[in-house]
């Protein structure tokens, strides 16, 4: 955790900045005093055990839930995210875990769903050009944008969902478990995609259970535990520290193996 301050200073003003965000559902405090910064061109991984509050946080940022207290700053301005439309209009796009694509429609129709221009005379050519442009910027490999989404693989669907979220040119994109349902090759494809989104200068929040994936692309790893911040790490930090932050226990299988390993190394 040593080189973090330098790193954040280098990135300048954050795109998104949360201070003291809390969310109560009745007697349950799902989130307490959450702090989170995301900069342009940065991938922040949000990790934590089940019930740590990751999904609640994402829903607050997507405008689905409203925080009980706390301040959300977007581009330096204090904002209220009252509805999903508010979040979208500000430039916060969310790719939910179930991608919410219409399998019977083709790729172009899915990318433009609900945002068609010229409602009385759909311009298929312009929409197809824009769809290809988006997909090519992501170096995506989609065989045809005129096939129904049902014929695409899981990774390709994830690509379509991400391309769809980029249509409105957001400044921040949130990916909820983008690799959970994917195979090895497709996971690699999606991780490449995340790097390309970052290269476009977007802030990325990625939720994942998979430490390998998180280490592969994240610039910073924010750990939540029981609805509270439980530390900020870099991919270089050891698995042992991460697991300790996630579980809250320094004594566990990972740390024991680590200790044995260090002990045996010391012996040699």
């Amino acid at each position: 955790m040593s080189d973090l301050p330098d790193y954040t200073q280098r990135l300048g003003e954050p795109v998104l900045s949360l201070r003291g965000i809390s969310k109560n559902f009745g007697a349950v405090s799902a989130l307490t005093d959450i702090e989170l910064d995301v900069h342009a061109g940065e991938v922040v991984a949000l990790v934590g055990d089940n019930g740590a509050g990751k999904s609640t946080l994402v829903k607050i940022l997507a405008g689905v839930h409203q925080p009980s207290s706390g301040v959300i700053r977007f581009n330096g301005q204090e904002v209220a995210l009252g509805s999903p439309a508010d979040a979208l209009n500000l430039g916060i796009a969310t790719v939910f875990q179930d991608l919410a694509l219409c399998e019977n429609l083709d790729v172009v129709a899915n990318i433009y769903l609900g945002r068609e221009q010229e409602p009385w005379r759909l311009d298929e050519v312009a929409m197809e050009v824009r769809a290809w442009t988006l997909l090519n910027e992501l170096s995506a490999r989609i065989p045809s944008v005129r096939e129904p989404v049902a014929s695409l693989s899981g990774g390709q669907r994830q690509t379509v969902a991400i391309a769809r979220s980029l249509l409105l040119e957001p400044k921040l994109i949130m990916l909820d478990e983008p690799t959970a349902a994917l195979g090895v090759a497709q996971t690699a494809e999606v991780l490449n995609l995340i790097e390309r989104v970052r290269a476009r200068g977007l802030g990325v929040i990625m939720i994942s259970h998979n430490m390998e994936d998180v280490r592969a692309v994240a610039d910073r790893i924010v750990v939540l535990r029981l609805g509270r911040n439980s530390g900020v790490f870099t991919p270089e930090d050891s698995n042992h520290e991460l697991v300790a932050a996630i579980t809250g226990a320094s004594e566990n299988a990972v740390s024991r193996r680590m200790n044995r390993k260090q002990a045996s190394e010391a012996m040699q």
Partner: protein
Amino acid sequence: MSQLDQVKSETPPQALDRSDVRVRHDEGIRGTVRAFIDRVRSGDLGMLPVAVGLVVISAVFTALNPVYLAPNNLVNLLFDCATVGIISLGIVCVLMLGEIDLSVGSTSGLASALFGSLWVTQGWPLGFALIAALVAGVVIGSLYALLYNRLGMPSFVATLAGLLALLGLQLYILGNAGSINLPYQSPLVMFGQILMMPKWLSHALGVLPGIFTILVGMRVIRRRREANLSAGGMAGLLFKAAVLTAVIEGVVYYLNLGRGVPWMFGLFVALVIIMDYAFTRTKWGRSMQAVGGNKEAARRAGINVRRIYASAFILCSSFAALGGVLAASRLASSSQQAGTGDVNLNAIAAAVIGGTSLFGGRGSAYSALLGIIVIQAIANGLTLLNLSSSLRYMITGAVLAIAVIVDSLARRSRASHGRA
């Protein structure tokens, strides 16, 4: 525009949509045939069941009674197609969302009774009576939409209840007399029974689809080339337009050997074309398909799902009401029998036979046109054979069952071929 410029200035060596080498791109007439066979094998049947069905039906009935294919019999057939076909057009709207309206028959019967009673018994002007009947359709559709959207009542149950309630209302309006005769000399009854297009006009209108195909197709090809997308050649376009024009002009010529092309069928075709445009080229149509395919995805995309449901139910009931009024004009009477019997099932079966899925998300306005021609071809043939209605019901029921089986099998095949 800036996007277009950007793409153009990069000028990749290949078309934008042809860079993936894994995909076979079927081009030329041979490619078109190959793509068609692939589509059918994966369960995307399109117009195939209709074409096969019509050939089989006309062969069988002509063998049994040569009058079947006589021009004037086909003219009668088209008159019958128009009334139930318009009802079926509304059914396509609700089926597209994976819902159903089982009360279209009763709605059409009620509209015909209301129309007859207001126009003949109460002495309203024809236009007002017609509008009142259509408004009744809108009200019924709004009621179903309300029950569905606000109370979560399945459309199947709501419309089943409506079937009985509306039939009761129809009987109440008609009272003890049980039927109202419409004046034979009125323009509406003439429209429903004898008005034909002039020969020259029917031929002229028959050329229009081909011309539009070429004009629209050329514009699309030009724009796609400008945008560096692959575009089909002119040859295929001209071929398509030629076949279309030849078929239409052939049919028109044959009908003109008899009484001609009924204006009422012309109205039906015009409505089909309007609805096809609405389904395929408007945001509303895209939203309909999206809601039918994945309601939750549509909601998250910002589509007002309730409004889409409401529009479908209202359109369906309104088309049913219009069909009811036209059926009354066809028979020159509003009676207790209007809209009962097989009207419901024929309208639903027509949409399904034409290729609209019962499971939502797939459908086209043309399925109402093609499907109703198949249904009426069977009904007309059975009438010519002087079969009892017991047999006719059984045969029509079997045809509906077969249509739904074909739909289910095709759907399963599409799923296993990854085509939704």
